[in-house]
């Protein structure tokens, strides 16, 4: 199986699925199972063609085929261009073996650096997600249920401004804030709380704060729009029936806001685990984070198949996380992406 063979697979599989659905719909139409006007009848030829071409290009060339070819590449050895498609270009697990054992052939010792970085990335991302939820829930509730119109507009404006500031600049802001000569250290020194500046960046505190900060609003907005749709009478009714405030939140507001909570949590987790700017700007020399390792596979080690394998590992982790959140909240994907 050569590179052309791989590409056939990359192209063939989605094409086969599309053909299957097309045949199915043609069959249903012939058997009279489907009703209503046909696609081109309904849209006209010009608009129909535009819809098919635009969606076809997007789905196949922009979304599905790139993912497939990345997965395909991750199962191939690193070869010079002349040998691609040659007899050595076979499917292999060596890139995944490298992630686990630090060697493409031996399984004697674990690849602790990469494994630790991976575990830390996932663990810290989950922690940041929970922290951001705890920090954002009250303000989102306030905006959605008790703030007046004028106040709400001001709060939203105050949030929109930092929202459009670039990730790199946000991380940079934390570097200015937390550096050894930065304002926080000056305040601490001035107050006599510490004898010498704290190395926030070396201790990764800067990175974790920067990540939490960067994706704070990704939590606020979904929570806000989910809580906003809750009828205020339900809260009043619960209070009239004597429910304490934490009961109201736990058993009235949160169940209603489930889709927003799930959506905010998935977004923050995914953005944290996939963040590249904050680790580049805020990481200390010994910081472990998974995305810079992936980046280095490509542009330092020039081992693209290995990089593809690492990227695929990250992707699978994110998919598993999304599925777990959906399962936990008993939701469908459509409900959290609104």
């Amino acid at each position: 199986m050569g590179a052309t063979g791989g590409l056939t697979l990359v192209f063939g599989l989605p094409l086969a699925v599309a053909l299957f659905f097309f045949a199915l719909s043609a069959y249903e139409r012939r058997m009279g199972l489907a009703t209503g006007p046909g696609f081109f009848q309904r849209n006209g030829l010009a608009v129909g063609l535009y819809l098919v071409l635009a969606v076809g290009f997007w789905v196949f060339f922009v979304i599905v085929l790139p993912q497939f070819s990345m997965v395909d590449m991750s199962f191939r050895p690193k070869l010079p261009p002349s040998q691609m498609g040659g007899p050595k270009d076979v499917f292999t697990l060596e890139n995944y073996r490298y992630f686990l054992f630090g060697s493409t052939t031996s399984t004697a010792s674990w690849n602790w650096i990469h494994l630790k970085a991976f575990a830390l990335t996932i663990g810290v991302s989950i922690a940041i997600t929970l922290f951001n939820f705890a920090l954002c829930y009250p303000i989102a509730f306030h905006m959605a249920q008790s703030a007046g119109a004028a106040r709400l507009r001001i709060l939203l404006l105050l949030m929109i401004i930092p929202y459009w500031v670039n990730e790199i600049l946000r991380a940079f802001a934390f570097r200015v804030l937390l550096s050894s000569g930065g304002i926080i250290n000056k305040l601490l020194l001035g107050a006599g709380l510490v004898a010498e500046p704290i190395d926030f960046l070396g201790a990764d505190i800067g990175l974790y704060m920067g990540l939490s900060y960067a994706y704070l609003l990704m939590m606020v907005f979904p929570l806000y729009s989910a809580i906003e749709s809750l009828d205020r009478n339900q809260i009043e009714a619960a209070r009239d029936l004597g429910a304490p405030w934490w009961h109201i939140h736990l058993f009235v507001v949160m169940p209603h806001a489930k889709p927003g909570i799930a959506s905010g949590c998935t977004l923050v987790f995914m953005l944290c685990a996939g963040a590249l700017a904050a680790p580049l700007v805020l990481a200390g020399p010994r910081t472990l984070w998974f995305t810079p390792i992936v980046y280095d596979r490509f542009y330092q080690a020039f081992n693209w198949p290995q990089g593809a394998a690492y990227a695929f590992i990250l992707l699978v982790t994110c998919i598993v996380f999304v599925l777990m959140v959906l399962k936990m909240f008993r939701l469908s994907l459509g409900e959290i992406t609104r």
Partner: protein
Amino acid sequence: MKSGPLQRVAFAVYVAIFFLYLLGPLAVMGVSAFNTPQYPQVWPIEGVTLDWFSQLFADEDLMDGLVTSLWIGLLVVAISVPVGLAGAIVMTQIQPRVRSAYYLVVVSPVLTPGIIIGISTVVFWREFTTLTGMKFLYDGIILTVIGQSSFISAYCMLIILARLQRFDQAQQEAALDLGATYPQVFRHILLPFLQPALFSAAVLAFLSSFENYNTTTFAILSDKTLTTVLAGRVRQGSTPAISALAVIIVAATLVGAVAYELWKRRADAAAGRRLRAAQMAEESELAGNAAIEPAAA
């Protein structure tokens, strides 16, 4: 919510902390853009200067990157809005059985980390252009536009879909009954109805593209955008010129946000006027008044 004074104070403290966390770092960075020391410093203020701004404009790499970023943003808007529109229309028409699979595929880029989108785009187009001999397509700007379009089209689709779901199919049927062709319905009924959503989608697409780093840094190859140049500068060392750039971006955002708010209010007011005019027309119709100017509705 009724609450005691203690609770109210506690909540006020919480809101203050929240906004201090949200805006404090940006304010600190903003101050350092006007302070004279070489290293971004907030306190003590040793002198007020605008040198960092002029240094910013003299930075040729950064300016070239800015121009590239603007072009990429415009191209992404030109692709993502039509694609998102098509995606949304297909979503409303596709058979229910296929719909969830289709939804899963087109929404997946929103939930995929940006670096993975960048990586997969580069990997696929490198293979594809080598195999088909279309090497000229393997270009940093083209790949970045394609990579960003994958998830930005999905944003656009979700925005347009939200409005499309409120579309009254009876309008289309009425137009068809009156002899309009399908392209005419699309052009004169559907597009005007979707216009506010299309505008919002275009703004969002441009801003998302402009500030994107994760996808861009992989897909841009040897070219440079504002964000990739910026990342390089920040890694080399901190200078207040970067703070100055942030100040400019915040100022531009403020102007944009206020302009958008004004536009939206005007649009809402116009919609309100149209609605009232339509109601009045309907009432006088009911009263037996046949002479209604069609433009009023």
